[in-house]
């Protein structure tokens, strides 16, 4: 996998830094970071699918929602313990990932993106009308059991989850599987022409992405304790995930984590000055400027800076 000393050093520093964070920042900031951690998980999930294979998902909340609703319904309506409900939620979301895979076998590009958007809209409508006694209908659900109490514990759980997902995916994408998935994104015909089953590779990407989305969605709902369909299946939420992955640096796993933190804090610090939706105008502008300067995202800016430092050293 070509691991170097500085990989260990950087991951070590990152983990230690996260562990010390509750000592250094306020509870309010910690709550913001919790959101950033979950956004990072969703952005990694998007990155594994769309960043690698080029199948752009506009409807990632579809997958996140399946995980969230599955565990919420199981725990709240049927009293299933979370140790059981979360794995079931992950598996259910993976089944959902296979549904998203179906159109990807036939269509590409913007057509695929539109279909994923339709999936999100479809599930948004469905959860409101199908068995509202289970889903809570339009109003959603509250009183979903929470796993932690207080910001500090919530932070540690979300940080542990995010680091586990990020590290696992980072290592996995450094193997030949990562190369093969990138190859699918660059030229599917050439992947077939290299004797590899592009369909199977896509299936792996969709399943991995769905598993992460389901895991993140389930834990997120057990952190929030409430589920609101209008906030979950929302185009702005879908775009926030995509923009986090893109401005951080798609197809890098680390980039989406950076992007998620950057975006969350940008929006949070703008809140006192711009309380309404006009904040999104600013973040759109920042994203645009960044693309013009470095289309490969913040990760690439840091990487080049690091290369320069090593060149001088």
């Amino acid at each position, binding site marked *: *996998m070509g691991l170097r000393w500085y990989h260990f050093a950087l991951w070590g520093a990152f983990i230690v830094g996260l562990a010390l964070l509750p000592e250094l920042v306020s509870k309010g900031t910690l709550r913001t970071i919790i959101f950033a951690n979950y956004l990072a998980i969703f952005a990694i999930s998007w990155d594994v699918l769309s960043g690698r294979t080029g199948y752009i998902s506009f409807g990632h909340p579809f997958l996140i929602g399946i995980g969230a609703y599955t565990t919420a319904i199981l725990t709240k309506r049927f009293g299933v313990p979370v140790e059981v409900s979360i794995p079931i939620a992950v598996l259910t979301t993976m089944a959902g990932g296979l549904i998203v895979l179906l159109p990807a076998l036939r269509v590409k590009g913007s057509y695929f993106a539109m279909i994923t958007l339709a999936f999100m809209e479809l599930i948004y409508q469905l959860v409101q009308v199908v068995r509202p006694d289970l889903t809570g209908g339009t109003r959603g659900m509250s009183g979903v059991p929470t796993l932690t109490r207080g910001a500090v514990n919530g932070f540690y759980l979300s940080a542990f989850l995010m680091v586990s997902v990020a590290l696992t995916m980072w290592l*996995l994408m450094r*193997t*030949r*599987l990562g*190369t*093969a998935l*990138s*190859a699918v994104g*660059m*030229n599917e*015909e*050439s*992947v*077939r*022409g*290299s*004797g*590899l*089953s*592009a369909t*199977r*590779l896509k299936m*792996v990407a969709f399943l991995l992405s769905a598993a992460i989305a389901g895991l993140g969605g389930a834990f997120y709902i057990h952190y929030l304790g409430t589920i609101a369909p209008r906030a979950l299946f929302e185009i702005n939420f879908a775009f926030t995930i995509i923009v986090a992955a893109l401005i951080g640096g798609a197809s890098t796993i680390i980039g989406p984590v950076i992007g998620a933190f950057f975006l969350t804090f940008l929006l949070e610090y703008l809140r006192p000055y711009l309380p309404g939706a006009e904040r999104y105008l600013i973040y759109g502008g920042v994203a645009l400027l960044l693309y013009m300067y470095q289309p490969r995202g913040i990760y690439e800016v840091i990487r080049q800076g690091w290369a320069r430092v090593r060149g001088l050293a």
Partner: protein
Amino acid sequence: MTQALSITNLVKRFGGLTATDDLSFAIEDGESVGLIGPNGAGKTTVFSQIMGEHRQTSGNIHLYGEEISSLTTAARIRRGVSRTYQVPRPFSEMSVAENIRVGLMPDNIWRMIVEGPNTERELELALSVGFAESDLQRTPAELSMGDLRKLEMARTMATGPKVMLLDEVFAGLTVGEIAQIGDLIQQMRGDGMTFLIVSHDLKALEPLVDRAIAINYGAMIAEGTFTEVIDNEAVRASYLGGVA
């Protein structure tokens, strides 16, 4: 001698157009055959059908005695037939080494993860097509057409074929590069590789093939030694645009 590749009564229709018209031929193991014909004669379509990128309307394709028509492209490649394309199709954001790596991969997710890349074999393949070791980290955007063709050859060779289909390997190459690729093909012939080669550069093609097949409008118009085929009346007429 065993037959490496045989095509029997192959027909391919696209709507009203018959791109392959009842074509039959066979290639012995270790043989090198030139497939010639004017533009639009249907040479590339024959390749596409052998590789399973297009399904034939009717007819059979056998690889070492096995009917492969129902197999996917990837499965056919694992059986030992591989092709290059007229327009090279590299993985644009990968290095030369990574491009070759994809060709070397087993079609097995688990093995992709647990086994590291075979960097020695990557280098060996890159060197064999005429790259220097320093070229391994270059990306396709930095390569000339000749280098892209070499990369395509290397990636195709990486899949471990027994039969190679080469589509216009000399197009856009300099004289030096043509000689280099020609030498490589000769060397691989010596090692027992079976070839079916499409080329408009008849002068470059001649020394590389044991015999030739000429097609026009998807149908065979001549078969024999290279000289016999290019001296054939019908072949000459087809190239000059006359009525065969």
